[in-house]
């Protein structure tokens, strides 16, 4: 007597055993991140609306500071619009950290870590997403700013440092957000992410130029690297575009982004422990 043993069911399609390249995996994760805006707009809208509100509110409320003798511009919106863009771009990066916390809490992040994609793509993918978000924030806030009376001093060239500063701070925000998300692994990290960026930016030349400040804030703002980043973002809107206003901000962005992204990578590696 013979027993017919059913043969194992053949897969309907070949298993994909090819390891995706870091570029393909990063683009896939970035796309997922951008799609998240449509699926959960409440998570991204504050990063979009708050800088617009901040540009309007600050330039209106603190309009009188342009009358301080020697103030570098007579348009308060020229002074506050770059600050709002940096704030929005920074929060776009931090938003990536919040999204990572949601994924960690739901367990989806474990599946991502088990995927045969290069580990670095878990950093570079969300980073690309954050850069995309920063471009949206910068474009929107600048458009609103121009409608409200912001005027550039160096033509279209004035826009370049603004975008560079926005992208740089989004990268730094992503590294910081992801690093904290990987360490705390829950929403306790959210307040720390937001507060540190908020305080870091405000303890700089955010509201008034250094020479207008007095006391402790002057001392802190002088050594705060965000002062250089703000100077980079403002050149072309407050004064002319020049190398003197550029290099300090670019250097600060490169160093801060490198440190925070390294912090994120270390945190990602420690998730395995």
């Amino acid at each position, binding site marked *: 007597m013979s027993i017919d043993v059913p043969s194992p069911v053949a897969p309907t399609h070949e298993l994909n055993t090819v390891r995706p390249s870091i570029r393909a995996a990063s683009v896939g994760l970035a796309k997922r991140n951008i799609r998240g805006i449509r699926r959960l707009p409440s998570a991204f809208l*504050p990063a979009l609306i*708050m800088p617009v*509100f901040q540009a*309007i*509110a*600050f330039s*209106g*409320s*603190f*309009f*009188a*500071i342009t*009358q*301080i003798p020697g103030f570098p511009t007579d348009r308060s919106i020229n002074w506050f619009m770059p600050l709002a863009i940096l704030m929005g771009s920074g929060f776009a990066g931090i938003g990536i950290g919040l999204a990572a916390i949601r994924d960690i809490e739901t367990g989806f992040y474990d599946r991502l870590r088990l995927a045969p994609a290069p580990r670095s793509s878990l950093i570079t993918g969300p980073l690309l997403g954050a850069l995309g978000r920063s471009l949206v924030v910068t474009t929107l806030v600048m458009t609103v700013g121009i409608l409200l009376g912001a005027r550039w001093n160096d033509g279209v060239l004035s826009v370049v440092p603004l975008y560079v500063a926005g992208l740089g701070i989004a990268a730094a925000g992503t590294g910081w957000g992801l690093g904290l998300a990987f360490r705390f692994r829950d929403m306790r990290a959210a307040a720390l992410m937001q507060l540190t960026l908020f*305080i870091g930016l*405000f*303890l700089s030349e955010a*509201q*008034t130029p250094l020479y*207008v*400040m*007095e*006391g*402790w*804030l*002057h001392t802190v703002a002088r050594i705060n690297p965000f002062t250089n980043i703000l100077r980079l973002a403002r050149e072309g809107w407050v004064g002319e575009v020049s190398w003197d206003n550029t290099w300090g901000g670019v250097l600060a962005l490169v160093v801060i982004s490198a440190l925070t992204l390294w912090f994120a990578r270390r945190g990602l590696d420690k998730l395995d422990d």
Partner: protein
Amino acid sequence: MTTTLVTDPPRVPPDRPVLHTSNIAQTWAMSKRAILAMWRQPSLVIPSMVFPLFFIALGTSAFSRAINVPGFPEVDSYLDFALAGAVVQGVLFGSVTGATALATDVENGFFDRLLASPSTRPGIIVGRLAGGMAYGAFQTAFFMVVLLPFGLEIKGGPVGAVALVASGTLLALAVGAIMSTMAIRTGSSEAVQGAFPLLFIALFFSSAFFPRSTMSGFYATLADYNPISYLVEGMRDLVIGGLTWWALSRAILLPALLAVGGVALALRSLNKRLAAS
């Protein structure tokens, strides 16, 4: 043969809390609960204490030279000017916390248990609002005490300082009542939290940080129509102008009127909820 069951009268443990039978005692118990909740969860209230102080410290350094621009009232320092804005900011944010706690009570069913208990209904709301008032008074006094060593000078003197505390207390009642109305109507802590950005926007579109006389265009118009401008300016008069009847009436009467309206709205919402259930 008949058996008579003899039972001892129920023994009340000596440490059992006494039942509150009077309306005042019940309202006081609710107030105590609201205050204890804040005390036990400092992370909920610390932002409303720290952020106004952070902004005032920042502003005093950043805007110290702005007090000389045309249109700025005569003040010794930006610190004196900014105190009223800090008080209003702290009270507004603190009131959201209180109302969120009420909405959480509605969400988790505790509010319905209170309604089912033989307690006074208005006491449930008034008690919580009284807790908010106590916190508003504490915030105002705390800001003054912290800022005094940094050069704060209240031109209204000790009476002016007491009037400021009274104003902060009434404002806490007014805003707390309005936010509680929202909490009772929506029954959602998320909806109450959602009002936070609105309050933030309303605060910035007022004269909380800079005087209206230095603003221009549509922004000045918005600040002119914003009631927060008048609340802040009433308190500010006591700090930078001194003790006058006009300053006192603006600092006390305006929040008192708002409080009457707000409490009426909150009690009406409670009655509507009771009628619907």
